[in-house]
């Protein structure tokens, strides 16, 4: 499992983001007009791609794309 794939999926989902802006250290709450709707999309995307269901509490504990990736790996192990 590679973080590049998660970044690719997120880029594909948030089309307004400048290409190349997303990297492991990117704080996803800096996405323009961030709201709970973005949170739901990220949760659903991760459920769909990795069959891992995060909840709001999990998401609160994550800041960067790397944090999300680590969380998915932890839940899969």
């Amino acid at each position, binding site marked *: 499992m590679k973080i590049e794939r998660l970044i690719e999926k997120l880029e594909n989902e948030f089309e307004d983001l400048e290409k190349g802006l997303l990297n492991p250290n990117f704080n996803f709450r800096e996405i323009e007009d961030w709201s709970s709707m973005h949170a739901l999309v990220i949760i659903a995307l991760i459920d769909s791609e990795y069959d891992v269901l995060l909840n709001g509490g999990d*998401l609160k504990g994550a800041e960067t794309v790397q944090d999300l990736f680590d969380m998915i790996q932890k839940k899969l192990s």
Partner: protein
Amino acid sequence: MIIGATSGIGNQITRDLEKSHQLFITGRKQSKLDLMNSDMSCVYLLDLNDENGFNVLLEKLPVLDGVVFCAGVTNHTPAKFIQQKHIEEVFNVNVLGVIKLVTILLKEKKIGRYGSLVFLSSIATKFPYFGGSLYVASKMALEGFAKTLAIELSDKKIRVNCVSPAFVRTDMSQKVEDLSSEDAFEVFSKKHPFGVVEIKDVSNMVCHLLSDESMSITGQVMQVGNFNSGLKM
């Protein structure tokens, strides 16, 4: 009979009626049913996904004066991410299980003349929300079923109504809060002019619809609480 009596709204209705009525209550989890500790109630394990469970229940049931359908699940998957498993999770419990159980109760003549059926819907059928497409669709299906049933059962004077609460704080809604995260709940609460709905208010409406006080009310969706979406729909 109260279907889904162990949590939230169903639990409150059970508490409100158990001293004055003979109740048959069902729940999906034995551990929660054990906690009900209700001397006056007949308690049954029932999963709306399991039709075999219906038959066991039927053998023990007398003719009922009222049935409340409280069992339900939520889902918060934006439409483009919906998978078969999400559809089945929501519709099997919120719609298919309810329809199958009603059908069996009617075939076996378990709903008495002048009886009352009450289905728990949601204000989300009027005010949908982001990520709620499956839940809202299931509750709209339920309302459609109930309204049609009201016509079909009118000759037996059996009333059929829905109760449609605005946001109520229960275990089920806690899952909404957990999932939607961030600031969502605070923003959402502010859209309720009278605040989020007290569970007792919902129970009161259900009890009213079950009682002889509502003999001429059928085919209705009774809203409890209010919601200001801020959107023109």
